[in-house]
């Protein structure tokens, strides 16, 4: 068993305890995946580097973990993939709240961006990253899980297939589907 599969198996035991009503598993889950979640928060904050003027990535992490801990009272993820998808959603929402606060119409960080490469959908300003993150939240859950694993976490398609307990081919198809969805939702490909 490789390290990805081993870590997933350990987390699955905690998720099973949570499913069985063991509330102490909530804190243990966060503690057990703390480094991976902290790294995820750091990575997710990078496009918002202008936020560093006001916020530290640890603040984002702490806010998101509080929300995650609270939400685990009501939401009981059945799988490791669902747990990380939930964590990524909370991190994204904390970042969006901060981005709206600082870069919104009244925010101190509002600025005009320069147009980037017209052929690419890559966001080139905090506002566009905000829009991109909001759009990610509207992806169907299966596609969003694939984006979280391949793009945010840098897993290979083979590793993502292990985590999501499906075939590489399915991962590949969900990946294409997610990118098509994002392209259309961001106002392109009409």
């Amino acid at each position, binding site marked *: 068993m490789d390290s990805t599969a081993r870590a997933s198996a350990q987390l699955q035991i905690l998720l099973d305890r949570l499913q069985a009503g063991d509330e102490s598993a909530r804190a243990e889950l966060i503690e057990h995946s703390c480094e991976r979640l902290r790294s995820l928060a750091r990575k997710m904050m990078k496009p918002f580097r202008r936020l560093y003027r006001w916020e530290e990535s640890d603040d984002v992490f702490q806010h998101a973990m509080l929300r995650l801990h609270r939400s685990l009272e009501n939401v009981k993820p059945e799988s490791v993939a669902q747990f990380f998808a939930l964590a990524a959603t909370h991190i994204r929402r904390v970042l969006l709240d901060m981005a709206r606060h600082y870069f919104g119409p009244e925010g101190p960080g509002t600025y005009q961006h320069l147009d980037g490469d017209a*052929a*690419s959908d890559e966001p080139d300003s905090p506002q566009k990253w905000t829009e991109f993150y909001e759009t990610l939240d509207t992806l169907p859950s299966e596609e969003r899980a694939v*984006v979280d694993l391949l793009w945010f*976490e*840098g897993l290979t398609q083979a590793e993502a297939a292990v985590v999501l307990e499906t075939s590489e081919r399915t991962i590949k198809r969900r990946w*294409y589907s997610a990118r098509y969805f994002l*392209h259309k939702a961001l106002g392109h490909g009409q």
Partner: protein
Amino acid sequence: MGNEDAASEDKLQQLVELWDDLRKQGREPLPEEICQDCPELLGELKKRIAALKATNWLEKPYNNNNDQGE
């Protein structure tokens, strides 16, 4: 989704996969080349290929993508 729609969607996904595999091997085929036996799917295939090209930046994992200027 009807049977016909599902079959078309499945075929489209196969074509997208083929296009992407060939592109990764360094030979980017024209949509017309790989859609010869199903011209009715050409328009939709072009849209999906355009989406893949526009989101090609997602192929680089997040931490590699955003390291500039750190």
